[in-house]
């Protein structure tokens, strides 16, 4: 009995922490999402009005679309490039350690610093990329001033920063693979493609899913790159969901509406991740 008491006493700080800093804010924001509150006057109960507004808000629809495009482009490109790089560096070669260190360096850049670096890189008149493009005989690319390309610029910066994450995860996965199934397949006469498709990919599937889920969750929450590089513009062409919520909550102090918008996140991420895991599990079982 005394041991039981100590167990609960030791658990108490962790439970208290979670209740205070996770559960309470979550419940408070849920309650807030049914109210209107701008902090300067008492909150008023609005029922589901904020959620109705979420559904009807065209700027919210745009933010969802932009976030979807961003997530689709960055996650697929980063995983693909990361995988290719991991295959490339998963072999003995001279200076491999130094090369690996260089490849992962972008991961340690602060996103907001990267955004400012991007402003210089993508400067349409005097940026290094503009000079390079001119030098090879092409015209101007409107990196940040055209809605069609501005999101692409944000995506490119994210790819530059986060491909090393996928590279690291895949490299670790490759290095941890058992060699026997590969050797057995080679003995059985499997070609390169068959080896990759029917042996390597199934073995790496758990690693791929892990990398995919991590990056997916991170990409859905993206804020700093769009905030720093384009401010969400031109117009609202790069206004991602987190940036829109930030505006509503911390610039306009529409805390009730911002809370209801915030609940889109867990719903969106949970549904996507569940769908993804089910799909991958189905594929994995087929293999």
């Amino acid at each position, binding site marked *: 009995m005394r041991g039981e008491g100590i167990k609960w006493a030791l658990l108490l700080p962790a439970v208290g922490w979670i209740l205070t800093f996770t559960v309470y804010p979550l419940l408070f924001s849920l309650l807030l999402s049914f109210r209107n509150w701008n902090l300067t006057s008492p909150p008023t109960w609005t029922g589901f009005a904020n959620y109705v507004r979420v559904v009807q808000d065209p700027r919210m629809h745009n933010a969802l679309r932009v976030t979807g495009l961003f997530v689709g482009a960055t996650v697929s490109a980063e995983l693909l490039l990361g995988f290719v790089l991991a295959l490339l560096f998963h072999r003995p070669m001279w200076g491999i350690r130094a090369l690996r260190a260089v490849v992962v360096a972008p991961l340690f850049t602060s996103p907001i610093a990267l955004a400012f670096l991007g402003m210089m890189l993508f400067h349409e008149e005097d940026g290094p990329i503009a000079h390079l493009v001119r030098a090879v005989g092409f015209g101007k690319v409107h990196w940040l001033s055209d809605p069609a390309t501005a999101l692409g610029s944000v995506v490119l910066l994210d790819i530059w920063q986060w491909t090393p994450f996928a590279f690291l995860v895949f490299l670790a996965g490759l290095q941890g693979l058992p060699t026997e199934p590969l050797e057995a397949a080679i003995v059985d006469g499997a070609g390169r493609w068959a080896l990759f498709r029917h042996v390597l990919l199934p073995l790496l599937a758990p690693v791929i899913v892990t990398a995919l889920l991590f990056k997916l969750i991170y990409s859905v929450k993206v804020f700093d790159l769009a905030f720093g590089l384009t401010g969400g513009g031109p117009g609202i062409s790069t206004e991602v969901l987190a940036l829109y919520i930030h*505006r509503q909550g911390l610039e306009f102090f529409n805390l009730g509406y911002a809370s209801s918008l915030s609940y889109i996140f867990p719903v969106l991420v949970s549904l996507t991740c569940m769908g993804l895991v089910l799909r991958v599990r189905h594929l994995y079982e087929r293999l």
Partner: protein
Amino acid sequence: MEIPFDQLPTKIKTDLITRAGRFDGFVPCATLYGDLVANNWIVPVDPWIRDPRFPRWDPNDMGPPIRQLYRWGGRQYGANYDADAWVLYGRRDLLNDPKEKAACQAKYGYALRLPRTIKELLDVSEFFNNRDWNGDGRPDFGIVLPLKVNAQGFFFYLAFAAPYVVVPGPTVDEYRNVFFFNPRTMEPIINSPGHVKALEDYIRLTKNGPRAQLGWDLVESWDVFLKGNAALTYSPGDIGSLAKNPDRSRIKGKLTAGPMPASTEYYDRRTGRWVQKLNRVGNLLGCSWHGLISSLSRNKETIYHLFAYMAERPRLFQITTFGWGGVDPGKIYDFPPEVSNGQGTGSIQAYLQQGFDREDALDWLRAYWQNYYEMDAWQEYLRIPGAPEMINSLDLHLSQALVGRETPKQALDAVAREWTEIVNKLGREKLRRAYQESIGYGRPAPRYRPR
């Protein structure tokens, strides 16, 4: 603590709303006044102005148009500091070039000069756009403007649109001398025909500059002009002082300036008709940065001492003439007699000692004097509660219109809808009172003249 422009209202309001009181004072954009005063977040400085314990400064040194931005409800809240307004800048050497003059005469049928009307602004910016007139092997620009969303781009539309919308008249009433709202009903007039035509022409104007400017902040557009790659720009006073800095400018001795161009017509909402008449409208656009004292401060007299110290005449004059610090001319002693019909008490020598070119400085100061004291009417300054949110809405839809995602009418209708929601949310009656107070509704229209 320095905070980026678009984060400033958030930081200040969060500190005040949560009653954290981390800041004894702050230097916000004057657009925030409505929120700050309505919530008693700042304290007036009247009791200390004549207190001998503090450095002496005179609120009357600030010209009447600017001084009103430092006041609310008959009380003085800020100590003298910055004075912002948007004026037009051009390249004197280009505009006086005989070859260019002849070409302009041939193309447009009138002599080239710094544009005085919107039509001239559109023509001259088109005339100089997309050709290499500075001989660096790359096409140059007619005009540069910083149009990045969530920065200060909206000021540029406001400066341009003022003469299309503001109807001059002897009093401030429902139809005359107003720009943002109908002060009787608080219905937005931001989508009135005057605004829509202004935005259409504004979009035309932006085509006479680099496409990249849609992603540029203030400093980026200044750099292009200061490096000598644009014929025109309009902006706050910083260009005038930055032009003398050899590290940033290649246009020292080549700068001219004037007030914002007049429109040749304006829309009268009372009659529902366009009036074909030259309309020159002055503005106070920008932030007119100055220190305000937080009501949460435990060191109010200390922070006032700092602001009063900065506002002392010799120090503030030196800061203004020094330039580069972003403090623009607005005090009566900033203007030499030769640019102010003998009414300013300043001296051009002080500017020359700080490295200004004589002609550059005289044109620059004259432009400001004319903007403050010689216009037909005034564009009011939006500083009611909710102004930052309203400005954000305008800024965003302007950007949408500039990139072609909304037509001017669609963009301004959307702004009007969103402003109506903000008015309803914050309280129509409360905002109506604040707006009427801030524009002097029912009183004679401002005809500013220095003492």
